[in-house]
């Protein structure tokens, strides 16, 4: 659950997904589910020389289990929050998940604030 919430905070950010078969896909994260399946938009730079047939793809769905790594911009990660959440385990993330569900989709800037609020609430 923790990383489900984590990936929800990365929606609309650019990420690079490396699959277990070594394919790397760069794109905008559009959605994520509890299995950490990912939907990417604006796909670019799938190792074009190696897989030219993939260069026509504009958006795709990635089954979570095939993912090896997801690289992201460090500026889009609140490290303190993530560490704190990992220490507290499951409870906190129930809060965070609830908080981010209740968010309007276009207000992504406020999302991190919401999560910080959830942390504050759960530690009361």
């Amino acid at each position, binding site marked *: 659950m923790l990383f489900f919430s984590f990936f929800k905070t990365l929606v609309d950010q650019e990420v690079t997904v490396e699959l277990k078969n070594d394919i790397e896909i760069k794109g905008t994260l559009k959605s994520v589910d509890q299995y*950490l399946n990912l939907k990417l938009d604006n796909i670019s730079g799938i190792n074009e020389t190696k897989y030219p047939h993939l260069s026509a793809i504009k958006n795709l769905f990635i089954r979570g289990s095939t993912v090896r790594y997801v690289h992201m911009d460090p500026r889009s990660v609140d490290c303190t929050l993530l560490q704190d959440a990992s*220490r507290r385990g499951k409870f906190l993330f129930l809060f965070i998940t609830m908080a981010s569900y209740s968010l309007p989709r276009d207000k992504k800037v406020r999302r991190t604030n919401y999560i910080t609020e959830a942390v504050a609430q759960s530690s009361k």
Partner: protein
Amino acid sequence: MSNTDVDGNPQEPFDLVRYQLDELVLVKLRGAREMKGRLQGYDSHCNMVLSDAVEYIYDLGEEVNSNPTVKKSEMVFVRGDSVILINPIN
């Protein structure tokens, strides 16, 4: 299972990982890979986020030869099912 350490405190394997938050870890992964980085988060599947990570890719499962491919990443999520072991670096 409630084991105890020397001081009689209950202990479980994930305690070791928790102590390493914001510290350096070496993670051994499937496919003859290793990743060193600062642990920013983890869950019970060993999914992890590492910052300032360096990945070492060795040839053909033989880690004896000492010239791995090195890749750097400022912030990376590692899916837990690839994880073999986690070692704290002090």
